[in-house]
């Protein structure tokens, strides 16, 4: 079964569904047509849009409401061009070429229209560029420069019209900066199928709102932050705790510990002018020390820990179902993606038992730092400030969940996004790409390739499989998959399946001996797993499970809220596009390949933790207290 991303979303009209090339009713066919753009002639398949044609031959047409990930809207009108024989100007993004046409992209009419459209947007766009976090990375600002806006033809607002919505732990909405391109709405409804944002009213009264115009913190927002990544201006941003983090660093009584996740390391170079796909993992370590963080740890350590805990939980569930013949919730769902967790809590609360009780790597690390690490180094946990560098806006919400205080303290104090970290680094006067490389700190300095690939969709599944195969079958993953690369779960297809027959079982490793006596009951069974990314695909999977389809037969399903997985997270550098995400994924997989140890259960730091601290093993008493959690059925009704 191949389920495509964005198939049949509920809102977008048929004519506006996602169609990077061509528009429904006028699909790209084998027919070729000749298009002349600014006297350059080119032959393209019928149905290609003018914008696509122009891109192919290197002609720039400005865009604002257009986004590669989203269905065509054609509302901002900035991409208008002159098509010979047409009375009015046509939008390049929404005009499919079906017969030979002649297009001009910068005639007097076109230039005047674009300038007017910009001036009209600016007449409502409150705020000064130098007091905006998108300064120098704003599509509206860039266009104003491109079109030489040196005064406001139709005025500029002197007073804000709206209150800034700071109700959410994760996101801040400032509608005074909104230009109504509706990318956020198309992201929220069509791309992610969450359905938080929509346009209210009409005409100049129209405004992007939540249900009932309620604060973002009170609606079904899952904090995925995909809207931030696609907002052309500064109307949407993550809730920024850098001031508090600086204050902690500056406070000599505080021991400030930071963990860095693989995706920010793969993406942060983009904030410093590098092409996507240049990981700066070890340069970042040096930069963070320069910034004043006391210890720098690798989230990969707790990712490995997560794999042990979550993998054990899966084996226990299977044992319960197959051997003890007890009712148990299967398939087990991953719980590393806080956006996905909140999505499930809102939209499918009846499936909460399926969610792995294992905390996400970020939260596990926080709990371990404030207990094991504090004991080890004789630091009072009250003086430890844990910061997490994450590609994610939902992590900010996650670390503020009331249940995430199992260490007796707030497990993770602050979540920083990649963008915020880049801001802090530049504030410290550091040129990140030029930094010398340095290692992570002990005792959590060694990580595995399995931890790294958590950043890509399918990565958690791949890491889990590497471990489960070896622990259960007693063989090397490499015997089944070349280089231990489990290719079927990789890639950006919306939902991917893998069926793994367990032909032979091995002895139960020491780590699990207390829990399960033997693997015989698994011999001859077929392990069925799936991975889905983006909540729109998650919805398809959940509906399929409800309907008793193929997904319901799976044993383990990985979900990530963001398209592409964490590397496409809501805290990652702006902009995002399929090619940018692909470059980041490539960086992550090549980092995985470069590790000596590539399987979570082989991580010596993890093994040490189980011998020294979590002495009753995975899913044991201590682990349950510190590394596992519960969830809140939230429901989708808003009162």
């Amino acid at each position, binding site marked *: 079964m191949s389920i495509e991303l964005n198939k049949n979303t509920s809102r977008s009209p048929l004519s506006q569904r996602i169609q990077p090339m061509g528009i429904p*009713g*006028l699909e790209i066919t084998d027919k070729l047509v000749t298009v002349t753009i600014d006297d350059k002639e080119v032959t393209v398949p019928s149905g290609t849009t003018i914008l696509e044609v122009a891109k192919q031959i290197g002609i720039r047409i400005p865009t604002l409401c257009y986004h590669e990930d989203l269905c065509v809207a054609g509302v901002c009108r900035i991409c208008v061009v002159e098509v010979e024989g047409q009375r009015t100007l046509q939008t390049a993004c929404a005009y499919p070429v079906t017969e030979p046409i002649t297009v001009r992209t910068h005639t007097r009419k076109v230039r*005047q229209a674009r300038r007017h459209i910009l001036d009209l*947007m600016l007449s409502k766009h409150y705020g000064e560029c130098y007091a905006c976090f998108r300064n120098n990375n704003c599509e509206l600002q860039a266009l104003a420069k491109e079109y030489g806006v040196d005064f406001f033809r139709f005025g500029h607002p002197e007073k804000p019209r709206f209150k800034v919505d700071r109700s959410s732990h994760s996101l801040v909405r400032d509608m005074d900066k909104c230009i*109504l391109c509706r990318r956020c709405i198309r992201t929220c409804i069509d791309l992610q199928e969450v359905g938080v944002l929509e346009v209210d009213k*009409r005409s100049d009264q129209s405004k992007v709102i939540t249900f009932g115009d309620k604060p973002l913190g009170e609606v079904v927002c899952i904090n995925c932050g995909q809207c931030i990544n696609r907002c052309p201006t500064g109307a949407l941003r993550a809730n920024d705790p850098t001031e508090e983090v600086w204050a902690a660093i500056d406070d000599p009584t505080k021991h400030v510990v930071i963990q860095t996740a693989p995706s920010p390391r793969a993406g942060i170079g983009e904030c410093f002018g590098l092409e996507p796909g240049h990981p700066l993992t070890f340069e970042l370590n040096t930069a963070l020390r320069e910034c004043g963080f006391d210890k720098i740890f690798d989230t990969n350590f707790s990712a490995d820990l997560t794999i042990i805990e979550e993998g054990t939980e899966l084996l226990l569930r299977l044992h319960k179902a197959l051997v003890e013949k007890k009712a148990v919730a299967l398939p087990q769902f991953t719980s590393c993606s806080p956006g996905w967790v909140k999505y499930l809590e809102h939209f499918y609360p009846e499936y909460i038992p399926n969610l792995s009780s294992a905390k996400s790597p970020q939260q596990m690390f926080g709990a371990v730092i404030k207990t094991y690490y504090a004991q080890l180094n004789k630091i009072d946990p009250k003086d430890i400030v844990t910061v997490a560098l994450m590609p994610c806006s939902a992590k900010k919400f996650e670390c503020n969940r009331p249940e995430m205080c199992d260490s007796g303290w707030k497990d993770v104090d602050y979540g920083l996004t990649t963008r915020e970290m880049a801001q802090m680094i530049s504030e410290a006067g550091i040129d990140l790409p030029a930094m010398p490389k340095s290692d992570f700190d002990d005792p959590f300095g060694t990580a595995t390739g399995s931890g790294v690939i958590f950043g890509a969709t399918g990565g958690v599944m791949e890491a889990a499989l590497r471990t489960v195969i070896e622990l259960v079958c007693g063989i090397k993953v490499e015997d089944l998959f070349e280089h231990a690369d489990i290719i079927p779960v990789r890639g950006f297809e919306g939902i991917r399946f893998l069926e793994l027959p367990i032909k032979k079982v091995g002895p139960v490793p020491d780590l699990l001996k207390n829990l399960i006596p033997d693997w015989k009951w698994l011999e001859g069974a077929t392990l069925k797993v799936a991975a889905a990314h983006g909540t729109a695909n998650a919805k398809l999977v959940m509906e399929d499970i409800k309907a008793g389809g193929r997904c319901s037969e799976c044993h383990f399903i990985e979900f990530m809220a963001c398209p592409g997985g964490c590397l496409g997270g809501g805290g990652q550098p702006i902009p995002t596009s399929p090619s940018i995400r692909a470059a980041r994924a490539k960086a992550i997989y090549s980092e995985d390949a470069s590790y000596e140890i590539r399987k979570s259960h082989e991580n010596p730091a993890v093994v040490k933790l189980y011998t020294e601290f979590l002495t009753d093993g995975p899913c044991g008493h201590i682990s349950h207290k510190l590394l596992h959690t519960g969830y809140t059925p939230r429901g989708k009704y808003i009162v």
Partner: protein
Amino acid sequence: MRTTDTSKMTFSRVSPGEGLKKALKMTPEEIIDLITASGLKGRGGAGFPTDLKWKLAAAVKDDLKYVVCNADEGEPGTFKDRVILTDFADLMFDGMTIGARAIGACKGIIYLRGEYAYLRSFLKGKLAERRNDGLLGKNVLGIAGFDFDVEIRMGAGAYICGEETALIESLEGQRGEPRNRPPFPVNTGFMGHPTIVNNVETFTWVPCIVTKGAKWFFDIGTERSTGLKMFSVSGDCGKHGVFEFPMGITIQELLEKVDGTGAKAVQAGGASGRCIPACSFGRTIAFEDVPTGGSIIVIGPDRDMLKVAENFMEFFLDESCGQCTPCREGNAKLLEGIKLLQQGRCSMKYLRELCKLGETMQLASKCGLGQSSPNAFLSIVTKFKDEIMGRTETAL
């Protein structure tokens, strides 16, 4: 009270059912050829050739096609469809049925504006009668395989839903925001199926043309604007109401017939139409000269043209769907400009900038609303400069 005497109109002299019976004896191609020969163009105002629309929809292969009657008459100064729906509903349904036959549709929808809700039960009754008489339902008029039925959908107070793609969006349960075109509804319409959307009056002329012949219709009017047209006349004239005139009538002739001579200007085509000053009353009402969906608002010599323009801009500012930038923000700027003019505080430079903005709106807006909303502003500002410039505040 009725202002309109419909008894002498062509519609009164064509008996309902006659055209339908005749048309259903023809092949779909013959019906479309007949419409082609008549030169009938869309009576809603845009003047798109009806035959072409039908031909395109007929050419698409689909088991499900729709015939939609656009009864979302919302253009200020237009009420002819209300009169047609009240007095000639059967003819209109005949026209829809003929259209269905021509394109191979089996479902019809009337999109009736919310303001006309009081007509719904009457129309429902008409539909029930027609079902009883075998004019709707399975095998219409005994023709095997020709099934056609009509349902009524109500608008909910949005002028923009008169735009055909916005109307379809509204039918699909969306905000009434016009779509990108292409693809056109004849190809991808209601629920993705080929759909023809025609005005109430367009459908009503169809059985008349079938009954009286294409030549009869073609011989009336001008070469590019054939036939008769219903006009909704209001404003500063002696006779209000709906009148039937041939296309190509000059404004002067029209004013004489409705006791409106001496007017300072005529707003032809409603708020989205053009304001014609007295010096241009020799112009003709035709798609090639002054196009109109039938709204004629006579503006008497004592009227303040700025107030007229203000009323129109307020209308558009309220009714713009708000999705595209030029229309959403542009109408607000034009209205602000009018307020400045009223206060006598608009510089010539800014007025010229606003006129250019109007041009941009005409060129770059997504749909017909934004493309035509500056028309009234532009024609009033250019034709009545002496009246609107340099006012003192007291002139308010």
